[in-house]
């Protein structure tokens, strides 16, 4: 059985970078927020290995105050799945793109239609944090058929038996949720961050990236003592909310890149 053929673009890309000894950096940016396209391109140029584009949803239950606020502002400015996705083919990044959104947008459009729209817009993968493994099979099948990798989230509370199934089902990479809680920066890296990444790495050789709660380059380095990389979101979006624009995002990403490269 040739499993290599089943590896999608996101996973291939991240595996290759990991295999060169590099730690992986994924940046989340809220689609539809003023200046988001420039921020995406700058983030990639500054050293992000992949970009997570948020499609704003009315009820972002896994998100803390920063991303909630950016989502709400974007929605009020008229952002929709169509408007965000329409901009993606014009983004010049050279790295894979995931969308991060909530399941109802996929459910409402219909799995096949939503997956096809993502694929046609140059999206490689999808993260749906309110679609846990038990409910995810129909979506994952439709997504896979369209060539979309579904990135599953593993939580500190996930029991051992399900963790193996979850890592097996996950495509692109495995998203290790670093703490009990929603997105947002924290003063210190939670002990659970390295714990859950370690547990994932025991059961999979897919890239394991830790996200949620990472708020400084030092914390990223600490998380990467176990994980293959990190996902940063709130800290990036806060630059946009503070009016620092793409430039501020670029500087931030560069600081993470340098810290991770220095180890």
């Amino acid at each position, binding site marked *: 059985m040739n499993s290599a053929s089943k590896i999608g673009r996101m996973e291939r890309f991240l595996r290759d970078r990991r295999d060169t000894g590099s730690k992986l950096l994924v940046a989340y940016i809220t689609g539809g927020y003023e200046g988001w396209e420039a921020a995406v391109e700058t983030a990639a140029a500054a050293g992000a290995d992949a970009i997570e584009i948020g499609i704003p949803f009315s009820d*972002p*239950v896994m998100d803390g105050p920063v991303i909630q606020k950016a989502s709400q502002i974007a929605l009020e400015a008229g952002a929709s799945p169509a408007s965000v996705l329409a901009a993606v083919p014009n983004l010049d990044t050279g790295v894979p793109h995931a969308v991060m959104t909530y*399941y109802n947008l996929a*459910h*409402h459009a219909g799995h096949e239609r939503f997956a096809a729209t993502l694929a046609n817009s140059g999206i490689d993968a999808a993260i749906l944090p*309110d679609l846990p493994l038990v409910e995810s099979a129909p979506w994952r099948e439709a997504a896979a058929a369209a060539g979309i990798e579904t990135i599953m989230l593993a939580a500190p509370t996930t029991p051992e038996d399900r963790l193996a199934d979850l890592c097996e089902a996950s495509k692109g990479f495995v998203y290790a949720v670093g*703490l*009990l809680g*929603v997105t947002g920066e924290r003063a210190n890296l939670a002990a659970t961050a390295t714990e859950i990444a370690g547990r994932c790495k025991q059961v999979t050789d897919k890239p394991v990236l830790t996200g949620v709660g990472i708020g400084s380059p030092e914390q990223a380095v600490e998380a990467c003592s176990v994980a293959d990389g990190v996902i940063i979101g709130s800290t990036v979006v806060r630059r946009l909310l503070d009016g620092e624009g793409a430039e501020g995002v670029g500087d931030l990403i560069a600081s993470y890149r340098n810290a991770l490269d220095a180890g």
Partner: protein
Amino acid sequence: MVMTDPTDGGRFGEFGGRFVPETLVPACEELEEAFRDAWNDPAFVKEFHQILTDFGGRPSALTECFRLSEQLDVRVLLKREDLNHTGSHKINNVIGQALLARRMGKSRLVAETGAGQHGVATATAAALLDMECKVYMGEVDMERQELNVFRMQLLGAEVESVSSGSRTLKDAVNEALRDWVATVENTHYCLGSVMGPHPYPWMVRTFHHVIGDEAREQCLALMKRFPDVVVACVGGGSNAAGIFSGFADTDVRLVGVEPAGGAAVGRGVPGVVHGMLSYLLQDEVGQVQEAESISAGLDYPGVGPEHAYLASIGRAEYPSVNDDEVVNAFQLLARIEGIIPALESAHALAWVVREAASLRGQVVLLNLSGRGDKDVDQMMTILGPGNKQ
């Protein structure tokens, strides 16, 4: 048979399920197991009913409305959940969940509230069982229901104002879920209606089953027959589920009344939010819409999944009434029967009044889910002081 157990995955037909972040899936599994175990333990069930009796004031009365019946030419019976301690049906569910939380070793309760009735009930149970309690409430609702905010505080609960989104019940649920994601190890989320991820819709209905059981016996004692129609208001649908479950195996007509501005079943578009697949008010791409109702307790864009199922198979029907009809029904019951109903419950009555001609000569059992003390302030503003129409 309807209104029995859902499937293993918590489905009622296609509706229900467990659409929550992975972090919460183990908590839902633990809760489901604990609930099954507790409900099979006679000691737990006994303590539950004991507290509902000694503390909650059950059984609640069945009141025949002689004057109203004469005026409408419909025989109207009220199941008096307004007479329960804390003023609504909400106490049934909350006592059940608080006892269960204690049994699971959790020392803290979080809850969402719209009208404040569920928040007050949860704060009450927390005081009774010596637990910590935090209640999330939308900014808009805190304004509408100031008195209930203070009641919760008197009972020792912390009330946190929610300023995101529509600043009403929907966003209070989001915030309670976010709290639970972070505190799941010592905290139980005491959800206030037959909604949310499995096992909540089933568990909450089970704790409210007592309403239907009592009403069924009371009807038989009074009339030696069932009513023709059972009617209740529907926000998430817990008081309706409670009374419906006492008659689900009969051919009694079941009617759940939605507010016109929050008619999730009426519009009939399935969607996923707050952990469940059910009917949901949403725009053309799937963004959840804000409900708009005079009553904070029904200001919710979704509905419990079992109601979506009952509607889809035609076992129950879900008409809606508008705010004006509700205001009129509210005043009517006060004047003609000496009972000030909650604005939520007035929705059920508004439907009976509107349909009186087609219900002529029938017996209607109406679940009076709560009392209207909490709404008096709001009604004073609407009607104007001294204005008695």
